[in-house]
């Protein structure tokens, strides 16, 4: 799900034939970028299994607006024009192009990503839609807080190193594995995992509100997949409440336990007898999505780390487990200064994509 401000801008671009704005047309000259983009999550933003399953439940224009480029074919997802095309008022089409192009500095500005990765939750009620104060996605705010706490880097520098249009992110399990540090402590008092995000400039997970991490355990040797027991969940939780006086419902966030950069989370695995097998899983959807079974398990989960615990001081990390993180040299050591209040204040100071979205909806929803 992405915000609408980008779309607002795109709606005003110079009209041009869709085929000339399609990514493949750009690929004729920009082959390397095109090939990288084709492997990106942006290229499948309108066709990936999780989006399609969500859209089947909530067929909202709100989703379509940002999961597809309004200028090219819908199935193309977020194509070249979504980011590179400039607003109509920017002037005449650039040489050799169908539309005016955004300036290079604008493309390097994280605010460009904010437009689609930070927006509010809509409520469809009483024949209209209103934007609530609850962020559905807030990756940009998380990054701002990270920067304010001394973190370095931008969206582009981490996700597009060297101009790579593959834009690796949460849908790259290898990147996820490299971004999570797991330390095992096994003492007489009990076994514990310490989890911390590594080299991440926002929450972990971030993005879609349903994403979460779980720490799961089962008795070693029990091969049953349903023997796994969740001992900790990291992510956002929500609840629907009602204002009885107005009979108006609203969704609230009751918890957010996603990993904050530089803030380790300790998970007790218990003191049970026998060998214990553990794993850390990244979930791309909600528990409800997992029960529905309409999205393949492959698309719903990524196992980030596994291991077994034999007894006190005999922990064994699973193959390929990430190295222990060392935060002492990290500029994000000051990250604990991050606070919700600061995040809220910063969000208020900034003109969020969600605000533009709200303005659009308040206009179009008037009856």
């Amino acid at each position, binding site marked *: 799900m992405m915000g609408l401000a980008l779309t607002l801008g795109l709606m005003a671009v110079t009209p041009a034939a869709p085929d000339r704005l399609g990514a493949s047309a750009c690929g004729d000259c920009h082959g390397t970028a095109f090939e990288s983009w084709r492997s990106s999550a942006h290229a499948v933003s309108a066709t990936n299994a999780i989006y399609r399953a969500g859209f089947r439940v909530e*067929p909202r224009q709100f989703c379509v607006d940002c999961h597809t480029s309004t200028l090219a074919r819908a199935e193309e997802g977020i194509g070249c024009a979504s980011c590179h095309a400039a607003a109509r008022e920017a002037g005449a089409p650039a040489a050799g192009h169908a539309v005016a192009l955004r300036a290079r500095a604008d493309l390097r500005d994280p605010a460009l990503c904010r437009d689609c990765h930070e927006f509010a*939750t809509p409520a469809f009620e*009483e*024949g209209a839609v209103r934007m609530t104060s609850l962020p559905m996605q807030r990756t940009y705010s998380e990054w701002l807080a990270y920067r304010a706490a001394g973190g370095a880097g931008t969206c582009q520098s981490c996700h597009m190193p060297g101009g790579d249009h593959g834009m690796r992110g949460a849908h790259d399990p290898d990147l996820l594995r490299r971004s999570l540090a797991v330390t095992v402590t096994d003492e007489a008092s009990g076994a514990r995992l310490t989890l911390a995000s590594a080299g991440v400039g926002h929450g972990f997970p971030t993005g879609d509100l349903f994403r979460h991490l779980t720490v799961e355990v089962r008795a070693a040797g029990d091969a049953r997949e349903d023997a796994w027991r969740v001992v900790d969940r990291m992510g956002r939780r929500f609840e629907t409440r009602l204002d*009885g*006086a107005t009979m108006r419902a609203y969704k609230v966030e009751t918890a957010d336990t996603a990993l904050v950069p530089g803030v380790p989370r300790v998970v007790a695995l218990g003191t049970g007898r026998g060998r214990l097998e553990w794993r850390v899983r990244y979930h791309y959807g909600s528990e409800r999505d997992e029960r529905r079974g309409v999205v*393949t398990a492959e698309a719903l989960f990524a196992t980030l780390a596994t291991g077994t615990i034999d007894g006190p001081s005999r922990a064994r990390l699973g193959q390929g487990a990430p190295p222990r993180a060392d935060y002492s040299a990290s500029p994000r050591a000051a990250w604990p200064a991050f606070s919700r209040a600061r995040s809220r204040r910063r969000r208020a100071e900034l003109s969020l994509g969600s605000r533009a979205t709200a303005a659009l909806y308040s206009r179009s929803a008037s009856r």
Partner: protein
Amino acid sequence: MRVKRAFVLAVVLCGMGGSAAAERAGAGGATGTEPVPAAGQESAQHRWRPLRSAEATATSYLQNDWNLYQENYHPSYVLDENPATAWVEGAKGFGENEAITLPLSALRSARALRLRIWNGYQKSMHLWTKNAMPRRVRVTVLDADEEEVTASETELTRTRGPQEVVVDLPRGRGLAAVRITILSVYPGLRFDDTCISDILVDVDSDVPYNPVAENAKHEALLKWVAGRKDQARYFASRPPEFPFAFSRFVSKKASGDRQAFKQRFAAREAIGKTLGPTRYKPVTKQSVKVLPDGLSEENNYAEDFAQLFKADRVALLETKDDVVSRSDDEDGNPRAWTSSARVARGPDQKAIQALAFEAKEVITERSTWSYDRNLLLVYDGDGRLQTLYRSVNNFSESEGEDDYDTVTDTDEIWSFVYDAAGKVREIDVDSLARHHRMYGKKAAREREDRRAKHVVYLGLPDKSS
């Protein structure tokens, strides 16, 4: 001339057919069949994992006096691993071209699908021989877009216990459902109803298996089966508080006059003015546990007022609370609320003449959307619910690629017709809907239906009525 009736009386002339549950657990095949490898076991070429379905759909299923309360014959009964229940097609004749569809977990790719089919009505040898069973069938595998992945025809045997059909899938294609279409049958000795007792589905795939989803679906199916049995018991007992003359109502649709409807609905305003300011929580001594089939559809929302058919069974407790009841969804998340009620009383200040309240249902996914109902219940001199005025606000499904988020406001008038015993025997529902879109150039344009809709719910007599 064959009789269109599946003979339910359990005259067990022979041993039961092989239990599907036992097969799932890895037991050998039943009489006359070869043992079939259970799910999770290796066969010569495949490693099978069970795929579950919470419900099945079919082009038809049999509804008759032998199955008053749908304790059987529904397509979902092929999923319950119980050969004593069966899907029985409901078309005239043997049901050629009738089909049953099992939705499955979406898989990106798979090598093969295995169906284990308990062919015929395997509750007893008597029922198995008296009823028909499929002979030649077409097995169609569908993907998430309901596009055909592969289709093949196969001949089922006249075998008690399970028989196996393996469908090889084209490389690189996903799957999300399987459909079995009856092409020809083995006739029964007495009835022309074609039956399948059970269908178990296993898959051979490299896609990681999701036991949580599979178990959840099977639990939901078993819950539905148990609920259906409870409902059947309730309908059969017909307690005094059950306000309906029948356990099943069928709807007949027609159109009505728009202007006439508007004039009738305007009466709501006058009645609304007689409501007092005090708010109450309506409480009934013995609740109506189950609504009749046909009225219990989701978009009827009849549960909002099912407890309020008779004013003399309703106690009004004064309250200052705006909301007096709440129900939660399967995750324990609040989902539906009912407001306290305002009341209009008769000249003696005792008898309830009218009751008004609101009901709200909120679906929470990534966003939230609500279904709002505003109700005004009007009672006759005998304290029976005579008329219901209701305004329903819904968000419709998209009607096309570019037509998302259509809002529908519907005004309704429900009129209840009682029999001599004071039970509802007929319900007339008139309604008029308005639609508008929330987005785009047509966002503000409101469209009103050209005709009012008229639906009559007629009680369907059954043996016990």
